[in-house]
Each structure stands twice: as structure tokens, then as C-alpha cells.
């Protein structure tokens, strides 16, 4: 298993990062860190995908000199997926950051637990 993992070093790093990001997003109290966790998680997935598309010794999938053989280029599909995924994660990051800004302006805190308590209090008064 260890040997296999060392061969798949990119994936190994990717899933470790994924786990770290997932845990931060789930359990950290600070909103900014949560967002960082989310980005780590997303990026880890892209790393995973990108490494899956790579084939040793082949070129990027841009046709050069009219060579159109499969053996010349790497798999183009994961690259496309990563492109799409990046845009999605940019969008969600922007949305989460703007929510954080509004909440911080309101409650002067980045601690999600505290924000929830303060919001509850605000409603009751």
C-alpha cells in the first residue's frame, strides 16, 4: 500500500489536503478559516483531477504541427473539469466572503458560534 501511495504521490497529497480542508470547513469556528478550509478542499480536488489526467511523457493537449495522435497528448478531459471547477469555487468563495463581511459588520465577530448566539439575542430583543 505504501509503495502504491508513493507512486501516486500527487493523489496522496491531494486527499490529505482534502481531509484537512474538509475538517477545517466543518469544525473550525472562525469563518475566514472556514473559507480557507473550503478553498483547500476544492483545490485538493483539482489537484487530484489534474494528476489523474496526466500521462507520463506527453504534451499538453494543444495540437502542434498537426500531430493528432493519441500517444502525443495527455487526457484533456480533467483539465476541462478543473477549469470549470475553479470558476465554481471562485463564485462560492466570493459569496461566502461577502456574507462574512456583512455578518462582521453586524456583530463584530468572526466566530460562528458567537454570531449565532448574538443573532438569536438580537431577534429576541
Amino acid at each position, binding site marked *: 500500500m505504501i509503495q502504491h501511495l508513493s507512486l501516486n504521490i500527487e493523489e496522496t497529497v491531494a*486527499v490529505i489536503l*482534502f481531509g484537512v*480542508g*474538509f475538517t477545517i*470547513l*466543518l469544525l473550525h469556528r472562525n*469563518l475566514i478559516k*472556514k473559507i480557507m478550509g*473550503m478553498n483547500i*478542499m*476544492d483545490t485538493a*480536488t483539482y489537484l*487530484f*483531477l489534474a494528476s*489523474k489526467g496526466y500521462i507520463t511523457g506527453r504534451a499538453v493537449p494543444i495540437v502542434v504541427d498537426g500531430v493528432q495522435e493519441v500517444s502525443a497528448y495527455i487526457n484533456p*478531459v*480533467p483539465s476541462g*473539469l478543473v477549469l*470549470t*471547477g475553479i470558476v*465554481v469555487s471562485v*463564485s*462560492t468563495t466570493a*459569496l*461566502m466572503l461577502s*456574507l*462574512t463581511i*456583512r*455578518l462582521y459588520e*453586524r*456583530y463584530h465577530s468572526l466566530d*460562528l458560534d458567537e*454570531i*449565532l448566539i*448574538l*443573532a*438569536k439575542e*438580537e*431577534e429576541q430583543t
Partner: protein
Amino acid sequence: MSFVQNFPFFSIILAMFSGIISSVLSGKKARNLSLVMIAVTTALSAGTLLFCLRTGESYPYMMGHFPAPWGNEIRAGILEGVTAVFFGVVMFLAVLGGLDHTAEDVEENKLNLFYIMIDLMLSSLLALVYTNDLFTAYVFVEINTIAGCGLIMIRQKGRSMSAAIRYMIMSQLGSGLFLIGLSILYDITGHLLMSPAKESVAALAASGAYRIPMLVIMAVVGVGLAIKSGLYPFHYWIPDTYGYATPTASAVLSGLVSKGYIFLLIKIFYRVLGYDNLVSSQMVNVLYVFGITGMVMGSLHAIHETDTRRMTAYSSVAQIGYIYMGIGLGTQYGMVAAVFHIFTHSATKALLFISAVGLYEASGDKKDYVSLRGAGYRNPLAGIGFTVGSLSMVGFPMLSGFISKLLFATSALESPHKMLPTLIVLAVSTTLNAVYFLRLVITLYSRRRPEDAPIPEVKVRSSWHLRLAILCFIAVNLVLGMWSQPIVQAIADGLAMFG
């Protein structure tokens, strides 16, 4: 190729296009456009459904010039058609019923943005229903999530914003798991379109290769979508989210968004992973256990809740548990029951959220039990609507909830090990539902006590759209309860088409 076959594509694009156009329209125009668009979309979906019913077949639809496995595809069949029509109807009525509150809760010059969210939400739901491509599903899941978040926080109160960020966090966890599941699946099959992916999964299962990754894919995709749809242990975001959004948003989120994810999950189970593989991998049992725990725990939480909207939200947790229990039964009938409960629950929960609006209007916008005392007399139609919805949730005969419970029970009889727990939990959860829903119904019809705080300016008559929406929702519930046979048949046929 018949022209009708283009309708699914038209409906998705139409919804998106009206969302894009709405960005330069005024709030009112955006609202009208949105209503017209939803109606037209529903009609288009109905056309698709009729076509599929007539031909008795499903068909793939190429999005572009390239067939599977190279180009994007969507796919329409009976089940997709039924679901799309149903989602359209519920969406229309939810938007119609919440019009006034939307106008109140949303700043005037941001109103068009609200309807952009609604439009794109519908388009993403339709895309999730029709999609035949896993990565398309991922992209539209994200649109759905962001639109959902937008619908929650557009009411810019502290609680709805904190609810929105919680929703977003949980959804991102779900999306992350879903995406990594897709990546692993792509790695071992090399396909993103569902039909070829299914073939390679079947080949892998037959050869016994990649057993561990297959297992993890099932778990990761299942858990990811379960988090997003609010299955029991992952339900923390539900009460705040449904409880503090504007009524249309609550109805849409609880009635449609979570159902869209569940529908996608069912579709992936059938069209990609193979239902037999799933049953043999014990994954269904995990969902089953989560489901029945959710049924009981959701109701217990709801009993302790004093804010009626949060109570309704917690009851959603229980109802989602029902759906997952049906999926987890591991039989064809169980799946039919689960899909039927998707319809039941979206119609009923939307009815509850919308008719509650009328009751709150008549109680000075208070949402606790004490203030709602006697609200059934102050706004009779809303009272009737809420009562019908509650009875349906409780499983009263002639209403849709009863039929879905009946279907669950009959399907449970087919799986020997799960029969007894299912029947017991059904009975317990029904009784618990009865406790909190009927308590509220009686409260609605009891007399106000002298010590109760007086109600500030009672709005006696709700607007016509609210009343129309409540009436239509009641009708939908009755139809589902009394003429369920053709619908159940259509669901069974549609699932058979999933293969």
C-alpha cells in the same frame, strides 16, 4: 425527431434566459416574467410527459452535435416528466403565495435579484431532473446551492444571514464530497455521461475490479447529497434556514431544493452505480438506518420547538427521513414509495409554509403558539390550508400523506428484515407527528384568553394570490391522496425506464 422532444431543453434554457434578462428589469417586471416563465416551463414539461407516456419510452437528447459519450446529454422519460411538472407547479404556487411577503422582506431595488434566483433555481432543478451527465449535475448542484443561499439571505436579517452562511458551509461540504466522488468515478470508468459510465461500472462490478473505490464512491456521493438534502445527522442547518427565510424561499427550499438532490441521488443510484450493486454493498442499509433515526428524532425536536416555523422545519427533517428510509428499503416498491413521498412532501410542506403566512398575517407576524391562538378564525382559508397540510403530514386518509405511508408500509412487507422496524417506526413517527401538528391545529381554533397580548392591527383578508395558492395546494394534496394510482404507476414505469 419530434419537436416535442426539444421541450426539456427549451424549459431549462428558458428558465436560465429569463434569469439573465431579469438582471436589467425592474422588480415588478421580473416578477411577472418569472411567473409567466414558470407557467410556460411547466406546460413544456407537461408536453414532455405526455410524449413519453404516449411513446412509453425515454430518450436522450444531445446538447450539441456530438452523441454520448463525447458530448453533453440530457434525458427525458416518464419519471423526469412527472417530477418536472410537479416541481413547476409547486414552484409557481410557492412564488404566487409568497408575493406580498417577498415584496415586504426584500428591498425594492433588489427585488429583481430575488426573481433571478427563483428563475435560476428552477432551471437548475430542471437540469438536475433531466441531466444525463455527472459533471453537468455537479455544476447545476452548485447553481442550486448558490441560488438557495441567495433566497435565504435576501431577507437581510441577522438570523437569515447566519442561517445562510451555515447553509453554505454544509452545502460546500456536501459538494466537496460529491465532487471527489465524481473524480474517483471518472478515474476508474473514464466516463462522465451516465449511460456509458453505467456500462463500465457494470463491467467493473462483474470483474470484481476496483471494489474498494466503488464502495467509497457510493458512500461519498451518498453522504454528500444526504448532507445537502438534510438527512438526520446532518440536519443542523435546516431549522434556521427554513425558519427565517422569506415564505416563498422556505417553501421552495424545503419543498424543492432538497428534493432535487434526492432525485439526483436516485438517478445516480439507478443510472450510474446500479441499484443491485448498491443493495449488495450495504449502502442502502446505512441510508435506511439514518432514515429511520431521522423520522423519530426530527419529530422529537419538532415537539420541543415553540416557534411554529421552526417546528415545520424540523418536521421536514422527519419527512426527509421517510424518503431515505424508502430508498434504504432496497426494493423497487420502496423506491416508488420514496419518490411518491418526494411529491407528497413538497406539496404538503409548501402548503404549510404558504398557509402559515396567512396565519401570521392575522396574528401580528408572531410565530409562537400563544399568538396564533384563534388565528384559524381570523383567517379561515389559511386555517383550512394549514389544517389540511397538517392532516396530510400526519397521514390522514384521503390526503397524500396517507398514500405515501401506505406505500411505505406495503413495500416494507417485502423485505423481511426491515419489515418490523419500518412498521414500528412508521407508527411511532406518525403518532409523534400527530402530537405536534394537531396541537397546533387545535391552538389555531381555540379561543384567545383574556391574558393574551392583544393583536396589533389584524389584516383580515389576505391577497387573492395567497388565497389562490392555498386553494391550489389543497387541491394538489387531494389529488395526490385520492387519485394516486396513475401517479404511482407513472413513477413505477419511470423507474423501470431508469433501468
